Protein backbone atom coordinates (compact mmCIF):
# COMPACT_ATOMS: atom_id res chain seq x y z
CA UNK A 1 0.00 0.00 0.00
CA UNK A 2 1.29 3.42 -0.86
CA UNK A 3 2.01 5.41 2.23
CA UNK A 4 -0.40 8.21 1.47
CA UNK A 5 -3.28 5.77 1.34
CA UNK A 6 -3.27 5.29 5.06
CA UNK A 7 -4.78 8.46 6.37
CA UNK A 8 -8.50 8.78 6.23
CA UNK A 9 -10.94 11.37 7.36
CA UNK A 10 -13.27 14.10 6.65
CA UNK A 11 -11.59 17.34 5.81
CA UNK A 12 -12.33 17.18 2.14
CA UNK A 13 -15.67 18.79 1.43
CA UNK A 14 -16.93 15.83 -0.56
CA UNK A 15 -16.12 13.45 2.26
CA UNK A 16 -17.46 14.92 5.43
CA UNK A 17 -18.27 11.63 7.12
CA UNK A 18 -15.94 10.88 9.97
CA UNK A 19 -13.94 7.73 10.01
CA UNK A 20 -11.39 6.61 12.52
CA UNK A 21 -7.87 7.27 11.49
CA UNK A 22 -5.55 4.38 12.07
CA UNK A 23 -2.06 5.71 11.75
CA UNK A 24 0.07 8.21 9.98
CA UNK A 25 3.22 6.27 10.67
CA UNK A 26 3.77 5.14 7.12
CA UNK A 27 3.26 8.50 5.60
CA UNK A 28 6.87 9.40 6.11
CA UNK A 29 8.28 6.31 4.51
CA UNK A 30 11.20 7.17 2.34
CA UNK A 31 10.02 5.40 -0.75
CA UNK A 32 7.23 7.89 -1.09
CA UNK A 33 9.64 10.56 -2.15
CA UNK A 34 10.88 11.35 -5.60
CA UNK A 35 14.49 10.59 -6.20
CA UNK A 36 15.80 13.68 -7.90
CA UNK A 37 17.31 16.63 -6.16
CA UNK A 38 18.53 19.46 -8.29
CA UNK A 39 19.59 21.76 -5.56
CA UNK A 40 22.22 20.62 -3.20
CA UNK A 41 20.31 21.61 -0.12
CA UNK A 42 17.08 19.85 -0.84
CA UNK A 43 16.39 16.83 1.27
CA UNK A 44 14.29 14.45 -0.69
CA UNK A 45 13.89 12.28 2.34
CA UNK A 46 11.22 13.84 4.40
CA UNK A 47 12.53 14.59 7.83
CA UNK A 48 10.00 14.73 10.56
CA UNK A 49 10.85 15.87 13.97
CA UNK A 50 8.36 15.70 16.74
CA UNK A 51 5.31 16.45 14.68
CA UNK A 52 4.57 12.77 14.49
CA UNK A 53 2.03 10.77 16.38
CA UNK A 54 -0.84 13.17 16.47
CA UNK A 55 -3.06 10.65 14.84
CA UNK A 56 -4.98 9.59 17.88
CA UNK A 57 -5.50 13.12 19.03
CA UNK A 58 -6.58 14.36 15.66
CA UNK A 59 -8.95 11.48 15.24
CA UNK A 60 -10.54 12.38 18.53
CA UNK A 61 -10.69 16.03 17.55
CA UNK A 62 -12.50 14.98 14.44
CA UNK A 63 -10.66 17.10 11.93
CA UNK A 64 -8.53 14.57 10.11
CA UNK A 65 -8.18 14.69 6.39
CA UNK A 66 -8.95 12.16 3.71
CA UNK A 67 -5.89 10.42 2.37
CA UNK A 68 -3.89 12.06 -0.34
CA UNK A 69 -4.55 9.09 -2.58
CA UNK A 70 -8.27 9.58 -2.25
CA UNK A 71 -8.03 13.12 -3.44
CA UNK A 72 -4.95 12.95 -5.63
CA UNK A 73 -6.99 13.31 -8.82
CA UNK A 74 -8.69 16.37 -7.37
CA UNK A 75 -5.34 17.82 -6.33
CA UNK A 76 -4.16 17.33 -9.91
CA UNK A 77 -7.23 19.10 -11.26
CA UNK A 78 -6.65 22.05 -8.97
CA UNK A 79 -2.99 22.29 -9.83
CA UNK A 80 -4.05 22.35 -13.47
CA UNK A 81 -6.45 25.18 -12.76
CA UNK A 82 -3.80 27.16 -10.91
CA UNK A 83 -1.37 26.70 -13.75
CA UNK A 84 -3.90 27.66 -16.40
CA UNK A 85 -4.88 30.85 -14.59
CA UNK A 86 -1.23 31.61 -13.93
CA UNK A 87 -0.42 31.26 -17.64
CA UNK A 88 -3.43 33.38 -18.54
CA UNK A 89 -2.35 36.07 -16.06
CA UNK A 90 1.09 36.28 -17.61
CA UNK A 91 -0.53 36.58 -21.04
CA UNK A 92 -2.84 39.30 -19.77
CA UNK A 93 0.13 41.17 -18.40
CA UNK A 94 1.98 40.79 -21.69
CA UNK A 95 -1.00 42.23 -23.51
CA UNK A 96 -1.45 45.16 -21.17
CA UNK A 97 -4.52 44.04 -19.25
CA UNK A 98 -2.66 43.46 -15.96
CA UNK A 99 -0.08 45.99 -14.77
CA UNK A 100 2.04 43.30 -13.16
CA UNK A 101 1.83 39.74 -11.95
CA UNK A 102 3.85 37.36 -9.76
CA UNK A 103 3.78 33.92 -11.41
CA UNK A 104 3.51 30.79 -9.30
CA UNK A 105 4.59 28.26 -11.95
CA UNK A 106 6.56 25.50 -10.30
CA UNK A 107 4.94 25.95 -6.91
CA UNK A 108 1.54 24.44 -7.69
CA UNK A 109 2.06 21.39 -5.50
CA UNK A 110 3.22 23.38 -2.49
CA UNK A 111 0.23 25.70 -2.76
CA UNK A 112 -2.57 23.36 -3.78
CA UNK A 113 -1.36 20.58 -1.49
CA UNK A 114 -1.30 22.81 1.56
CA UNK A 115 -4.46 24.71 0.66
CA UNK A 116 -6.41 21.49 0.19
CA UNK A 117 -5.54 20.42 3.74
CA UNK A 118 -7.12 23.53 5.22
CA UNK A 119 -10.47 22.99 6.90
CA UNK A 120 -12.43 26.16 6.32
CA UNK A 121 -14.71 25.34 9.22
CA UNK A 122 -11.84 25.99 11.61
CA UNK A 123 -8.79 27.31 9.84
CA UNK A 124 -7.70 30.58 8.30
CA UNK A 125 -4.97 31.23 5.71
CA UNK A 126 -2.64 34.23 5.66
CA UNK A 127 -1.29 34.60 2.11
CA UNK A 128 1.35 36.72 0.43
CA UNK A 129 1.04 37.95 -3.15
CA UNK A 130 1.98 34.58 -4.71
CA UNK A 131 -0.66 32.23 -3.34
CA UNK A 132 -2.96 31.63 -6.32
CA UNK A 133 -2.75 27.85 -5.83
CA UNK A 134 -3.88 28.16 -2.22
CA UNK A 135 -6.74 30.37 -3.34
CA UNK A 136 -7.78 27.77 -5.92
CA UNK A 137 -7.68 24.97 -3.37
CA UNK A 138 -9.64 27.00 -0.81
CA UNK A 139 -12.32 28.04 -3.26
CA UNK A 140 -11.57 31.76 -3.05
CA UNK A 141 -13.31 33.85 -5.68
CA UNK A 142 -10.52 33.91 -8.24
CA UNK A 143 -11.53 37.05 -10.08
CA UNK A 144 -11.57 38.76 -6.72
CA UNK A 145 -8.16 37.28 -6.02
CA UNK A 146 -6.73 38.55 -9.29
CA UNK A 147 -8.10 42.03 -8.57
CA UNK A 148 -4.98 42.76 -6.56
CA UNK A 149 -2.81 42.14 -9.65
CA UNK A 150 -5.24 44.08 -11.78
CA UNK A 151 -4.56 46.98 -9.39
CA UNK A 152 -8.25 47.22 -8.57
CA UNK A 153 -7.82 46.89 -4.82
CA UNK A 154 -4.67 46.18 -2.84
CA UNK A 155 -6.02 43.33 -0.76
CA UNK A 156 -8.14 41.77 -3.49
CA UNK A 157 -11.89 41.97 -4.05
CA UNK A 158 -12.96 38.69 -2.45
CA UNK A 159 -14.49 38.59 1.01
CA UNK A 160 -11.56 37.63 3.27
CA UNK A 161 -13.73 36.74 6.24
CA UNK A 162 -16.06 34.41 4.37
CA UNK A 163 -13.20 32.98 2.28
CA UNK A 164 -11.06 32.26 5.36
CA UNK A 165 -8.26 33.79 3.31
CA UNK A 166 -6.82 37.07 4.62
CA UNK A 167 -6.38 40.06 2.34
CA UNK A 168 -3.40 39.67 0.02
CA UNK A 169 -0.19 41.19 1.37
CA UNK A 170 2.16 42.97 -1.03
CA UNK A 171 4.97 43.01 1.51
CA UNK A 172 6.25 39.79 3.04
CA UNK A 173 6.49 38.59 6.64
CA UNK A 174 4.17 40.99 8.46
CA UNK A 175 1.21 38.66 8.03
CA UNK A 176 3.05 35.81 9.75
CA UNK A 177 2.51 37.71 13.00
CA UNK A 178 -1.17 38.12 12.13
CA UNK A 179 -1.50 34.38 11.78
CA UNK A 180 0.07 34.00 15.20
CA UNK A 181 -2.32 36.57 16.69
CA UNK A 182 -5.33 35.01 14.99
CA UNK A 183 -4.25 31.64 16.36
CA UNK A 184 -4.05 33.11 19.86
CA UNK A 185 -7.60 34.32 19.36
CA UNK A 186 -8.69 30.73 18.67
CA UNK A 187 -6.91 29.48 21.75
CA UNK A 188 -8.64 32.14 23.84
CA UNK A 189 -11.95 31.18 22.23
CA UNK A 190 -11.29 27.64 23.40
CA UNK A 191 -11.13 28.94 26.97
CA UNK A 192 -7.37 28.67 27.30
CA UNK A 193 -5.01 31.35 28.55
CA UNK A 194 -1.94 32.14 26.45
CA UNK A 195 0.39 30.58 28.98
CA UNK A 196 0.21 29.43 32.54
CA UNK A 197 -2.31 30.75 34.99
CA UNK A 198 -2.65 34.02 36.76
CA UNK A 199 -2.48 34.04 40.50
CA UNK A 200 -5.93 34.03 42.00
CA UNK A 201 -7.44 33.70 38.58
CA UNK A 202 -11.16 33.46 38.37
CA UNK A 203 -11.15 30.45 36.10
CA UNK A 204 -14.28 31.13 34.18
CA UNK A 205 -13.67 28.34 31.75
CA UNK A 206 -13.20 25.23 33.82
CA UNK A 207 -13.03 25.70 37.52
CA UNK A 208 -13.06 21.97 38.11
CA UNK A 209 -9.80 21.47 36.31
CA UNK A 210 -6.87 23.23 37.92
CA UNK A 211 -4.84 22.77 34.76
CA UNK A 212 -7.47 24.15 32.44
CA UNK A 213 -5.36 27.05 31.39
CA UNK A 214 -2.09 25.24 31.01
CA UNK A 215 -0.91 24.89 27.46
CA UNK A 216 -1.54 21.40 26.24
CA UNK A 217 1.84 20.90 24.67
CA UNK A 218 2.42 17.35 25.63
CA UNK A 219 -1.07 16.10 26.30
CA UNK A 220 -3.30 17.35 23.55
CA UNK A 221 -6.84 17.87 24.66
CA UNK A 222 -8.73 15.22 22.78
CA UNK A 223 -12.10 15.79 24.33
CA UNK A 224 -13.21 19.14 22.99
CA UNK A 225 -13.89 20.71 19.62
CA UNK A 226 -10.89 21.43 17.41
CA UNK A 227 -9.01 24.64 18.03
CA UNK A 228 -9.00 26.66 14.82
CA UNK A 229 -5.59 26.87 13.21
CA UNK A 230 -3.87 29.61 11.26
CA UNK A 231 -1.62 28.80 8.34
CA UNK A 232 0.97 31.45 7.59
CA UNK A 233 2.46 31.51 4.12
CA UNK A 234 5.92 32.92 3.61
CA UNK A 235 9.04 32.25 1.61
CA UNK A 236 12.74 31.77 2.06
CA UNK A 237 13.24 35.50 1.62
CA UNK A 238 10.67 36.43 4.26
CA UNK A 239 12.28 33.99 6.66
CA UNK A 240 15.03 36.59 7.11
CA UNK A 241 12.55 39.07 8.56
CA UNK A 242 12.36 39.57 12.31
CA UNK A 243 8.58 39.26 12.23
CA UNK A 244 8.86 35.60 11.23
CA UNK A 245 11.20 34.89 14.10
CA UNK A 246 9.04 36.82 16.55
CA UNK A 247 5.97 34.93 15.38
CA UNK A 248 7.67 31.56 15.88
CA UNK A 249 8.87 32.59 19.33
CA UNK A 250 5.41 33.77 20.41
CA UNK A 251 3.88 30.60 18.97
CA UNK A 252 6.36 28.52 20.95
CA UNK A 253 5.89 30.42 24.21
CA UNK A 254 2.09 30.36 23.91
CA UNK A 255 1.73 26.92 22.27
CA UNK A 256 -0.35 28.38 19.47
CA UNK A 257 -2.24 26.58 16.71
CA UNK A 258 -0.21 27.85 13.76
CA UNK A 259 1.30 26.19 10.73
CA UNK A 260 4.30 28.17 9.52
CA UNK A 261 4.31 27.14 5.87
CA UNK A 262 7.50 28.20 4.12
CA UNK A 263 7.69 27.75 0.38
CA UNK A 264 11.41 27.69 -0.19
CA UNK A 265 11.42 28.38 -3.91
CA UNK A 266 15.15 28.93 -4.14
CA UNK A 267 15.08 32.61 -4.94
CA UNK A 268 14.09 35.88 -3.28
CA UNK A 269 13.98 37.89 -6.48
CA UNK A 270 17.69 37.60 -7.39
CA UNK A 271 19.18 36.29 -4.16
CA UNK A 272 19.49 32.50 -3.87
CA UNK A 273 18.61 30.68 -0.67
CA UNK A 274 22.25 30.01 0.15
CA UNK A 275 22.81 33.76 0.39
CA UNK A 276 19.56 34.26 2.26
CA UNK A 277 19.20 31.59 4.91
CA UNK A 278 22.09 31.12 7.32
CA UNK A 279 22.48 27.47 8.05
CA UNK A 280 20.67 26.68 4.82
CA UNK A 281 17.39 25.58 6.34
CA UNK A 282 14.31 27.44 7.52
CA UNK A 283 12.86 24.32 9.11
CA UNK A 284 15.99 23.83 11.20
CA UNK A 285 15.22 27.11 12.93
CA UNK A 286 12.06 25.64 14.42
CA UNK A 287 14.08 23.67 16.95
CA UNK A 288 15.32 26.92 18.43
CA UNK A 289 11.74 27.89 19.22
CA UNK A 290 10.86 24.47 20.56
CA UNK A 291 8.67 23.78 17.56
CA UNK A 292 8.54 20.59 15.52
CA UNK A 293 9.28 20.90 11.84
CA UNK A 294 9.13 19.06 8.59
CA UNK A 295 11.24 19.65 5.53
CA UNK A 296 9.32 18.20 2.65
CA UNK A 297 9.41 17.84 -1.10
CA UNK A 298 7.30 20.80 -2.09
CA UNK A 299 6.79 19.47 -5.60
CA UNK A 300 5.11 16.30 -4.34
CA UNK A 301 1.52 17.37 -3.86
CA UNK A 302 0.67 14.32 -1.79
CA UNK A 303 3.59 14.88 0.56
CA UNK A 304 2.65 18.53 0.97
CA UNK A 305 -0.97 17.70 1.60
CA UNK A 306 -0.15 15.08 4.20
CA UNK A 307 2.43 17.18 6.03
CA UNK A 308 0.03 20.12 6.18
CA UNK A 309 -2.79 17.91 7.40
CA UNK A 310 -0.55 16.50 10.13
CA UNK A 311 0.46 19.97 11.24
CA UNK A 312 -3.13 21.22 11.22
CA UNK A 313 -4.32 18.19 13.17
CA UNK A 314 -1.63 18.83 15.69
CA UNK A 315 -2.75 22.44 16.01
CA UNK A 316 -6.44 21.49 16.23
CA UNK A 317 -5.79 19.16 19.12
CA UNK A 318 -3.83 21.65 21.19
CA UNK A 319 -0.37 20.49 20.22
CA UNK A 320 0.77 23.90 19.03
CA UNK A 321 2.70 25.15 16.07
CA UNK A 322 4.65 23.39 13.33
CA UNK A 323 7.14 24.70 10.80
CA UNK A 324 6.91 23.18 7.34
CA UNK A 325 9.56 23.97 4.76
CA UNK A 326 8.35 22.90 1.35
CA UNK A 327 11.32 22.73 -1.01
CA UNK A 328 10.21 23.91 -4.41
CA UNK A 329 11.32 26.17 -7.21
CA UNK A 330 10.16 29.44 -8.70
CA UNK A 331 10.33 28.37 -12.33
CA UNK A 332 9.26 31.77 -13.59
CA UNK A 333 10.49 35.25 -12.85
CA UNK A 334 9.82 36.93 -9.50
CA UNK A 335 7.31 39.08 -11.31
CA UNK A 336 6.49 39.95 -14.88
CA UNK A 337 8.95 42.84 -14.57
CA UNK A 338 11.83 40.57 -13.59
CA UNK A 339 14.45 38.92 -15.85
CA UNK A 340 15.89 35.82 -14.16
CA UNK A 341 18.46 35.58 -16.95
CA UNK A 342 20.42 38.24 -15.11
CA UNK A 343 21.07 36.05 -12.10
CA UNK A 344 20.54 32.35 -12.82
CA UNK A 345 21.19 29.83 -15.53
CA UNK A 346 18.81 28.34 -18.03
CA UNK A 347 20.18 24.93 -17.09
CA UNK A 348 19.01 25.36 -13.57
CA UNK A 349 15.53 26.30 -14.70
CA UNK A 350 15.40 23.41 -17.13
CA UNK A 351 16.43 20.90 -14.50
CA UNK A 352 13.55 22.02 -12.32
CA UNK A 353 11.12 21.79 -15.18
CA UNK A 354 11.95 18.09 -15.13
CA UNK A 355 10.52 18.01 -11.62
CA UNK A 356 7.33 19.73 -12.67
CA UNK A 357 4.79 19.06 -9.91
CA UNK A 358 2.03 18.38 -12.40
CA UNK A 359 4.12 15.87 -14.31
CA UNK A 360 5.12 14.16 -11.07
CA UNK A 361 1.51 13.94 -10.03
CA UNK A 362 0.40 12.71 -13.43
CA UNK A 363 3.00 9.97 -13.37
CA UNK A 364 1.84 8.77 -10.00
CA UNK A 365 -1.79 8.81 -11.00
CA UNK A 366 -1.00 6.78 -14.14
CA UNK A 367 1.44 4.41 -12.43
CA UNK A 368 -1.07 3.54 -9.76
CA UNK A 369 -3.95 3.29 -12.14
CA UNK A 370 -5.81 6.11 -10.47
CA UNK A 371 -6.30 8.07 -13.69
CA UNK A 372 -5.94 7.66 -17.42
CA UNK A 373 -6.02 9.66 -20.65
CA UNK A 374 -9.65 10.52 -20.31
CA UNK A 375 -9.10 12.08 -16.87
CA UNK A 376 -6.17 14.19 -18.03
CA UNK A 377 -7.99 15.41 -21.12
CA UNK A 378 -10.96 16.38 -19.01
CA UNK A 379 -8.77 18.04 -16.35
CA UNK A 380 -7.01 20.14 -18.98
CA UNK A 381 -10.31 21.19 -20.52
CA UNK A 382 -11.74 22.05 -17.13
CA UNK A 383 -8.68 24.12 -16.21
CA UNK A 384 -8.94 26.01 -19.46
CA UNK A 385 -12.61 26.63 -18.86
CA UNK A 386 -11.97 28.03 -15.37
CA UNK A 387 -9.12 30.21 -16.57
CA UNK A 388 -11.34 31.57 -19.35
CA UNK A 389 -13.93 32.45 -16.73
CA UNK A 390 -11.32 34.22 -14.63
CA UNK A 391 -9.99 36.01 -17.70
CA UNK A 392 -13.47 37.17 -18.58
CA UNK A 393 -13.98 38.24 -15.00
CA UNK A 394 -10.77 40.24 -15.00
CA UNK A 395 -11.52 41.94 -18.29
CA UNK A 396 -15.03 42.85 -17.18
CA UNK A 397 -13.94 44.46 -13.93
CA UNK A 398 -14.96 48.05 -13.96
CA UNK A 399 -12.98 51.02 -12.77
CA UNK A 400 -13.26 51.59 -9.08
CA UNK A 401 -15.56 54.45 -8.08
CA UNK A 402 -13.65 57.42 -6.75
CA UNK A 403 -15.40 57.46 -3.39
CA UNK A 404 -13.66 54.16 -2.60
CA UNK A 405 -10.54 56.22 -2.02
CA UNK A 406 -12.19 57.24 1.24
CA UNK A 407 -14.66 54.48 2.00
CA UNK A 408 -12.64 52.06 4.11
CA UNK A 409 -9.94 54.16 5.73
CA UNK A 410 -11.86 54.12 9.00
CA UNK A 411 -14.82 52.24 10.37
CA UNK A 412 -15.96 55.61 11.74
CA UNK A 413 -14.32 58.26 9.58
CA UNK A 414 -13.54 61.68 11.05
CA UNK A 415 -15.53 64.61 9.69
CA UNK A 416 -12.37 66.13 8.26
CA UNK A 417 -11.86 63.11 6.02
CA UNK A 418 -15.47 63.19 4.87
CA UNK A 419 -14.98 66.86 4.03
CA UNK A 420 -11.91 65.97 1.97
CA UNK A 421 -13.97 63.33 0.18
CA UNK A 422 -16.85 65.64 -0.59
CA UNK A 423 -14.57 68.33 -1.93
CA UNK A 424 -12.60 65.83 -4.00
CA UNK A 425 -15.74 64.33 -5.48
CA UNK A 426 -16.91 67.80 -6.41
CA UNK A 427 -13.61 68.90 -7.91
CA UNK A 428 -12.39 65.75 -9.61
CA UNK A 429 -15.27 63.56 -10.66
Amino acid sequence: MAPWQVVGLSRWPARRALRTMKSTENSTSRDSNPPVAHRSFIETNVTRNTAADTSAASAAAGTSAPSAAEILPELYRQMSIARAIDREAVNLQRTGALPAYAPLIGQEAAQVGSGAAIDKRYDFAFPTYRELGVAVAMGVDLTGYMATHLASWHGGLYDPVASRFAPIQAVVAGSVLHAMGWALGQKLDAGLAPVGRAPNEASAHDSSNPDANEPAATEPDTSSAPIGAAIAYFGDGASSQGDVHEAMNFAGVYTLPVVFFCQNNGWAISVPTENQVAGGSVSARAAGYGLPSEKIDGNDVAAVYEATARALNRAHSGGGATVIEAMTYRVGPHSTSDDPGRYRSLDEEQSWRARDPLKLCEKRLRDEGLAGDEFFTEAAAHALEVSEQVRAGILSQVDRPMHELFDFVYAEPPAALLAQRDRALEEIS
Partner: protein
Amino acid sequence: MAEISFELPDLGEGLVEARVLEWLVSIGDMVTRGEPLVEVETTKSAVELPSPQTGVVVTFHAEEDDLLHVGDTLVTFEVDDEQAGIVGTVPKAEAPERRVRLQLPDD
Protein backbone atom coordinates in the same frame (compact mmCIF):
# COMPACT_ATOMS: atom_id res chain seq x y z
CA MET B 1 1.51 58.71 46.12
CA ALA B 2 0.67 55.37 44.57
CA GLU B 3 -0.55 52.02 45.81
CA ILE B 4 1.07 48.66 45.23
CA SER B 5 -0.48 45.35 46.22
CA PHE B 6 1.14 42.00 46.83
CA GLU B 7 -0.32 38.52 46.72
CA LEU B 8 0.29 35.53 48.92
CA PRO B 9 3.39 34.01 47.34
CA ASP B 10 3.83 30.35 46.48
CA LEU B 11 5.53 29.15 49.64
CA GLY B 12 6.84 26.09 47.91
CA GLU B 13 6.40 22.37 48.37
CA GLY B 14 3.16 22.43 46.44
CA LEU B 15 1.28 24.34 49.09
CA VAL B 16 -1.69 26.17 47.67
CA GLU B 17 -3.01 28.04 50.69
CA ALA B 18 -2.05 29.49 54.03
CA ARG B 19 -3.79 30.86 57.12
CA VAL B 20 -2.93 34.30 58.43
CA LEU B 21 -1.78 33.84 62.03
CA GLU B 22 -0.68 37.31 62.96
CA TRP B 23 0.01 40.61 61.29
CA LEU B 24 3.36 41.84 62.57
CA VAL B 25 2.73 45.42 61.46
CA SER B 26 -0.28 47.73 61.73
CA ILE B 27 -2.23 49.73 59.22
CA GLY B 28 -0.46 53.03 58.76
CA ASP B 29 2.96 51.64 59.70
CA MET B 30 5.90 52.61 57.54
CA VAL B 31 7.76 49.37 56.89
CA THR B 32 10.96 48.72 55.02
CA ARG B 33 11.56 45.91 52.62
CA GLY B 34 12.67 42.77 54.43
CA GLU B 35 11.04 43.73 57.72
CA PRO B 36 8.81 41.00 59.25
CA LEU B 37 5.31 41.56 57.85
CA VAL B 38 3.00 38.70 58.68
CA GLU B 39 3.08 35.21 60.11
CA VAL B 40 1.18 32.61 58.14
CA GLU B 41 0.60 28.93 58.67
CA THR B 42 0.69 26.36 55.94
CA THR B 43 -0.21 22.72 56.30
CA LYS B 44 3.44 22.11 57.03
CA SER B 45 4.64 24.94 59.18
CA ALA B 46 4.23 28.49 60.35
CA VAL B 47 6.43 30.95 58.47
CA GLU B 48 7.16 34.62 58.80
CA LEU B 49 6.93 36.58 55.55
CA PRO B 50 9.20 39.58 55.10
CA SER B 51 7.78 42.73 53.59
CA PRO B 52 8.33 42.74 49.81
CA GLN B 53 8.12 46.53 49.69
CA THR B 54 9.11 49.70 51.46
CA GLY B 55 6.07 51.83 52.10
CA VAL B 56 3.08 52.57 54.29
CA VAL B 57 0.73 49.67 54.92
CA VAL B 58 -2.75 50.79 53.91
CA THR B 59 -4.81 47.60 53.59
CA PHE B 60 -4.75 44.08 54.95
CA HIS B 61 -6.72 41.91 52.56
CA ALA B 62 -7.10 39.16 55.14
CA GLU B 63 -7.92 39.17 58.81
CA GLU B 64 -6.07 37.01 61.26
CA ASP B 65 -7.28 33.41 60.98
CA ASP B 66 -8.41 33.93 57.38
CA LEU B 67 -7.41 31.32 54.84
CA LEU B 68 -5.78 32.63 51.66
CA HIS B 69 -4.99 30.87 48.40
CA VAL B 70 -1.68 31.42 46.68
CA GLY B 71 -2.16 34.44 44.49
CA ASP B 72 -4.85 36.04 46.66
CA THR B 73 -4.12 39.67 47.44
CA LEU B 74 -2.47 39.89 50.84
CA VAL B 75 -1.49 43.48 51.52
CA THR B 76 -1.45 46.92 49.90
CA PHE B 77 1.21 49.53 50.42
CA GLU B 78 1.19 53.21 49.68
CA VAL B 79 4.55 54.19 48.31
CA ASP B 80 6.33 57.35 47.33
CA ASP B 81 5.70 58.29 43.77
CA GLU B 82 9.42 57.96 43.13
CA GLN B 83 9.03 54.28 43.87
CA ALA B 84 5.85 53.87 41.92
CA GLY B 85 7.23 53.27 38.46
CA ILE B 86 10.10 51.07 37.44
CA VAL B 87 11.78 53.53 35.09
CA GLY B 88 12.29 57.25 35.57
CA THR B 89 11.34 59.61 38.38
CA VAL B 90 8.18 61.48 39.11
CA PRO B 91 8.34 65.22 38.45
CA LYS B 92 7.92 67.49 41.43
CA ALA B 93 4.46 68.98 41.56
CA GLU B 94 5.69 72.51 42.01
CA ALA B 95 5.06 75.48 39.83
CA PRO B 96 7.76 76.29 37.30
CA GLU B 97 9.71 79.47 37.85
CA ARG B 98 8.98 82.58 35.82
CA ARG B 99 11.06 85.63 35.01
CA VAL B 100 9.28 86.96 31.94
CA ARG B 101 6.58 89.55 32.61
CA LEU B 102 3.84 90.40 30.14
CA GLN B 103 2.68 93.77 29.02
CA LEU B 104 -0.64 94.28 27.30
CA PRO B 105 -0.59 96.55 24.27
CA ASP B 106 -2.39 99.82 24.61
CA ASP B 107 -5.21 99.00 22.26
